[in-house]
């Protein structure tokens, strides 16, 4: 069994909006024989707001998580795209800028920690694709998802050209994964477009326009369900779908799931274990044949 330090972040914590992501990852890992060990006493990644207020301190708090992971050994897995980008960015800055490294080292030392830059930050999809492989995943499928039309939504963070391993404009890993489960990945040109992120709070109109485009593109290409690997993407497209319908006089009911939930369905895991009911647009109809 391969061990990975696991960084759930606030989104995947028990009260988080992406808790179903956490549950389904754990379920799928059992099938695939992976062990994600939660980093003890992890702290917030700082995400967007902190970085803009106090850049140095934002590096220091990310570095604390990296230092704790380094003690455990192995690659750090950060399922949330925002955590992934901020932890990766800290890694990159520490390697590149000695000035940043010096102040971060001082901050870590005050807490009795040190970091040597050995931790690689990875996404769940990356681990499944490269460490497990499509063939091994396909071999675990109990309920072939044949006929299910899926829009694979990567979002903008997972495919950042500096850190990501997939094509930044036309990523394909999730499409291939979905195909390994037997389902069809529909043509979805907006697969790496922005969902509005946290701007849904301050710039609602702009974000709703972006979400509408995602829904337009996915549904017009025949998608019955959308899957994503980012809790914020999932939240925005799922929770704000009714607002899009009200504003633009549309009638979308596209379930938005985590790709791990879909894997769980294909692996024959229990519906409750996967948290299929935590999302707002019900997935029951689309998945009726498979659960």
């Amino acid at each position: 069994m391969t061990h990975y330090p696991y960084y759930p972040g606030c989104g995947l914590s028990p009260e988080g909006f992406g808790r179903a992501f956490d549950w389904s990852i754990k379920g799928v890992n059992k099938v695939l024989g992976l062990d994600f060990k939660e980093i003890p006493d992890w702290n917030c990644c700082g995400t967007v707001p902190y970085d803009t207020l106090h850049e140095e301190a934002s590096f220091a708090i990310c570095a604390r998580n990296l230092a704790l992971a380094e003690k455990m050994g192995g690659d750090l897995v950060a399922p949330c795209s925002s955590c992934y980008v901020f932890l990766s960015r800290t890694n990159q800055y520490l390697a590149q800028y000695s000035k940043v490294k010096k102040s971060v080292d001082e901050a870590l030392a005050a807490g009795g920690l040190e970091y040597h830059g050995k931790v690689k930050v990875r996404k769940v999809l990356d681990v499944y694709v490269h460490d497990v492989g499509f063939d091994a995943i396909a071999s675990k499928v109990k309920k072939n998802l044949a006929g299910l039309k899926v829009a694979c939504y990567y979002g903008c963070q997972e495919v950042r050209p500096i850190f990501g391993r997939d094509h930044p404009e036309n990523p394909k890993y999730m499409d291939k994964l979905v195909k390994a489960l037997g389902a069809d990945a529909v043509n979805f040109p907006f697969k790496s477009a922005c969902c509005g992120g946290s701007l849904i709070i301050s710039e609602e109109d702009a974000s709703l326009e972006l979400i509408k485009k995602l829904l337009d593109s996915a549904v017009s290409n025949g998608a019955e369900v959308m899957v994503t690997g980012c809790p914020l993407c999932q939240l925005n497209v799922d929770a704000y779908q009714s607002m899009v319908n009200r504003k633009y006089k549309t009638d979308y009911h596209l379930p938005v799931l985590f790709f791990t939930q879909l894997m769980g369905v294909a692996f024959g895991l229990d519906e409750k274990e996967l948290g299929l009911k935590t999302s707002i647009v019900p997935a029951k109809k689309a998945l009726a044949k498979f659960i």
Partner: protein
Amino acid sequence: MEPKIGVYICHCGSNIAGIVDCSKVTEFARSLPNVAVARDYKYMCSDPGQNLIKEDIKKLGLNRVVVASCSPRMHEPTFRRACQDAGLNQYLFEMANIREQCSWVHLDKDMATEKAKALVSAAVHRVALHEPLETKEVAMNPCTLVIGGGVAGIQAALEIADSGHKVYLLEKEPSIGGHMAMFDKTFPTLDCAACILTPKMTSVGQNRNIELLAYSELVELSGYIGNFKAKIRKKARYINAVKCTGCGRCSELCPTSLPNEFDCGLGQRKAIYISSPYAVPNKAIIDAKNCRHIKGLADGKDICRLCQKGIEKKGMPGCEADAIDFNQKDEIIEIEIGNIIVATGFQQFDPAKIYQLGYGRLNNVVTGLEFERLTNASGPTGGKVLLKDGSEPKSIAILHCIGSRDTNYHKYCSRVCCMYSLKFAHLLREKLPEASVYQLYIDMRCAGSGYEEFYERLQEEGVNFIRGKAGEVTDLTETPEEKGKLMVMVEDTLVRRKRRLPVDMVILSCALEPRPDTEQLARILTLSRKADGFFLEKHPKLDPVATTTDGVYVVGCCQSPKDIPDTVAQASAAAARVLALISMGKVEIEAAIAFIDEEKCSGCKICLDLCPYKAISFDEAKKVSRVNEALCKGCGTCVAACPSGAIKGRHFTTEEIMAEIEGVLA
């Protein structure tokens, strides 16, 4: 004879004197051993500067000269000539580079002055050991090889052939003409490309001094300027070119249809075909990969052969000239030439790499080259600009800088795209006066004779210019009016707003990039390439067509993206350089080459395989290695490798190099 050295320190205006204290260096030079005179002067390369050296040689009886100035690349020949004019052997001269390797790269004046002193000291120590060497001359073969049959190669070949000298024109494709033969009109004069090119193509076919090697490739090259030997593969056409009359009947009979390369795959051709309406040579060719008969032969079957047999029922006879030869094989020929002009051109950037622009995914997103074919009277639509569904577009967006000026792909500007985009816009206004035409540009670059005027003319013709680089092309529409359109997303940076343009057709003005075989050709010809992949010229300003390999010239777009006038000018320039050498009739061979002391040579043969120029042979009778003085480039590989120390690099002897090192450290 005791060395008597003259040292000359050049100020190079303020280039050297601005950082290096030249008078201090001169003072220091006077203190060095064997130095009879040391002077500094504003410009040593000027006539008065050279005269200083000449007079000192004569009056003071100098027998060694050192000039401390720029890189030897430019002015070593100048000063060597000055020495020779004054009766001193040119190899008794040495140059210290205190500009590129000192003043241009340092800021601290004192340190730079110290470094300049060390470099001068090195040269003085070295030159004391120099020996006079004699250069040799070899005959210049008057035949020339031109690689590439586009407009550049055609121009160069014709100019040399018209002066009565033999030219081999090598073309990889079945016909010459290159990209220019595919174009419709040319900017800014709007002459038809075919009208101005085809007469030249025909002249090539008819010129008795040109041997056209179409559908052939260079495999190997050996030799040196004046005396190259080239191995060329003439690929099998499966057609007897002497018998074929180019009547085209075979194509009518052939049952296999394939996308036509000449029309960028927009039109069709047969498996036996003539590549374009104005092909030179106007001979058929069989696409062996797709010919039913040739594929059948591999399985031992004799099928099809309709081109040969004809279809009796329909009263269509097969090839009457009996030109089809299914058993033809590739042929390797060897030619001897004195000079080589490389004119291999470019390839168009593949815009499918930029996923968000939709090329290859969305209908009616076309490249510039595809549009040339669409608007060309000899193209697949007979010159009508049509969408995939056969209707006429009502709005067209032309997107500039696709793959150019883009850090993700090519940083450079491809130079011709602004102008050909304007040409497209003009053709569209002419052919579809009702249609709206948009130009999405970063900057308009219209530098050239009549170019800016053409840009102004287009503005008056009612073309919409939007300053902004298109970010995305999508078929995702929002309103009923947009339905079925391509949406082009762009930030209009002049009005500072995001715009969504609904259009029917998108033309991508793609970058010009090096051909994929550039690296391979560079290896065969020992040419260098620039960071962007194009061939490197000898000097970007003062020697733009020569290369670091003597006798090899680069012209046209294989050197950097350029338009037709510049390409033709370069081709003529290279032809003139070649003709000058041919009229000289001979070429001087560098004397700084390897020399084998037969007494010391043990006959181990280690040097034979190491020599990159195949210049060393083995004398079986005497059991010693021999250097061919014409082939040796003086690289020194064998000198370093010889276990007996039998090989000496003339002008780079161990003693000379040790003295140079001691000079630096002194």
